[in-house]
C-alpha cells in the first residue's frame, strides 16, 4: 500500500514532538503514556488496513492539538510545516496540468478507497463532493469546504493559478498546515493522472464548473 508506505516513511518523531516544551491542552490522565496505551489497545488490523496507520507524521501530530496549533508559537511551526509540505509537492511529470474533466468529475464523485472494507485493487476516489460544491448539477454536496463553482472564472487560468491549485490538491497542507482537506497526491490517495483530470474539472472552459 503506497499510502501506508508514505505514511510510514513520513512517520517522524510523534512523541518527540508531543513531549516538547509546548504546553498541551489535555488534562490529568491523558498524558502521552496513557494516550499511547489507549491507542495500542483501542485498534486492530482489519482487511487491508493495519494499525500502522495510527503513526502520525509531523503535520498530523501538530494539528492534533488545536490549542497548540492555534497559539502564537504554533503559527511559526505551521509556517515551517507548510514549507516542508510545499517542498514535497510533485509537479506533473509531463508538464501538463490539465487532463480530462469528465474523468475528473467521476473521481470527484467517488468517495471510495482505503477503508477496511474497500478492496485495495479498486481505484480511490477524490471525495471532493463530500465537502465541496463543484458542478451545480450535483445537489448532493457537502459544505465542509468552500464552493468550487466558477473556479477558473474566479481564479483565472494562468500558470500561477494552475500551480496553486495543483499544490493544493497534491498537498493541501502546503498552504494551510491544518487544512481539513486530505493530501491527495502526497499520501498516495490519487495518482498524477487523477489530479490532472480533477484540475481539468476546475479549469476547463467546457467543464460544468465554469458554466
Amino acid at each position: 500500500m503506497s499510502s501506508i508506505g508514505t505514511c510510514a516513511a513520513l512517520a517522524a518523531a510523534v512523541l518527540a514532538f508531543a513531549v516538547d516544551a509546548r504546553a498541551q491542552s489535555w488534562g490529568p490522565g491523558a498524558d502521552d503514556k496513557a494516550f499511547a496505551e489507549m491507542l495500542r489497545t483501542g485498534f486492530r488490523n482489519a482487511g487491508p488496513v493495519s494499525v500502522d496507520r495510527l503513526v502520525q507524521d509531523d503535520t498530523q501530530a501538530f494539528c492534533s492539538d488545536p490549542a497548540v496549533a492555534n497559539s502564537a508559537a504554533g503559527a511559526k511551526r505551521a509556517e515551517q510545516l507548510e514549507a516542508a509540505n510545499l517542498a514535497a509537492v510533485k509537479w506533473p511529470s509531463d508538464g501538463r496540468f490539465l487532463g480530462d474533466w469528465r474523468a475528473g468529475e467521476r473521481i470527484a464523485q467517488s468517495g471510495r478507497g482505503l477503508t477496511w472494507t474497500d478492496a485495495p485493487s479498486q481505484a480511490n476516489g477524490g471525495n471532493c463532493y463530500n465537502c465541496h460544491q463543484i458542478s451545480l448539477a450535483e445537489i448532493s454536496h457537502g459544505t465542509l469546504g468552500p464552493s468550487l463553482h466558477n473556479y477558473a472564472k474566479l481564479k483565472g487560468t494562468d500558470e500561477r493559478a494552475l500551480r496553486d491549485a495543483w499544490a493544493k490538491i497534491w498537498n493541501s497542507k502546503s498552504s494551510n498546515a491544518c487544512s481539513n482537506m486530505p493530501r491527495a497526491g502526497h499520501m498516495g490517495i490519487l495518482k498524477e493522472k487523477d489530479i490532472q483530470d480533477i484540475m481539468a474539472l476546475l479549469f476547463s472552459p467546457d467543464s460544468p464548473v465554469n458554466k
Partner: protein
Amino acid sequence: MAARTKVAVAAAACVAIALGFAGVAQEKDDAAKGIEAYRQALKDGNPAELFEMAGEELWLKPAGPRNASLEKCDLGLGPGVVEGAYARLPRYFADTDRVQDLESRLLTCMETLQGIDTRAHVEARFGTPKKDELVALATYVAGMSKDRPVDVAASHPKERAMFELGRRMFFYQAGPHDFSCATCHAQEGRRIRMQDLPYIPAKEGAAAGWTSWPAYRVSAGQMWSMQWRINDCFRQQRFPEPVYASDMTVALSMFMAATANGATMATPGIKR
C-alpha cells in the same frame, strides 16, 4: 466469510446512501427512496421497538455455562436496575476498577453472571449474531432511559481522565486522509454531502449525537449501537478498526456524554 461479505456489502451500500457517491440520477433516486422508507417507518413507529423487545428477552433468558440471566446485572444503579441506568453511563465501576460504557458493562455481566467468555463477542463483526445480541441488549437498556436527563458529570478522577483521553482522541489525526473526528465534527452548521454533521465539542451537538443512539437506520435497515456508530466513523476516517468496548471507544463516549450532560435522552433513535 459469507456473513462478512454481506456485512461489507451492507456497509458499502449504507455509505453509498449516506455519502451519495453514486451518480446524480442514482442519488436522487436513493434519496427519494430513503425519505419514503423513513416516512413509512415513522408511520408505523420506530422499528427499534422490535430490537428493544428482543433485548429484553435476552436480558431475562438464562444463558451461558451458569445458565443465568442478566437480571442481576449492575449497570451502575445497583443489581437489576435498568430504568434510568443508560442516562448515567459511562461511569466508573469499582468492581472492575474501570470506566465503562453500556456495551463494555454488558460484557462484564455476561462474564460474571453467565460465565460466558466474551472474546468471541468482542471479535465478531457488526451484523453477525454475537454482535446482534449486544446491540439488542443495548437497545433495550437505552430505551429504559428515554426522556431522562443525561447525568454524566465525569467527577470521579478516572471518569475525568477518560473524558480527557476522549477529547484528545477526538482531535487525533492519522491515516492517509489526515482525518480525525474533528475534521467533520468540529465546525458548526456543516454537512458531508447532504448529511448534517453535529458539532460535538459543544453541548447541543454532543447531545444530538449522544442522546439518539442506539438508533434504527432506515436506509440500512439495521439497528446500530453507539459502539457500531463509532466503529463506522473510524472506517470512514480510514483508521484501523476500533476494538469493541475498548477504553478508546469508552473515552470517546465519555467525551460526548459529559459534553451533553443535562440533555434529554431520545433513545432509541431513528435515522435516515
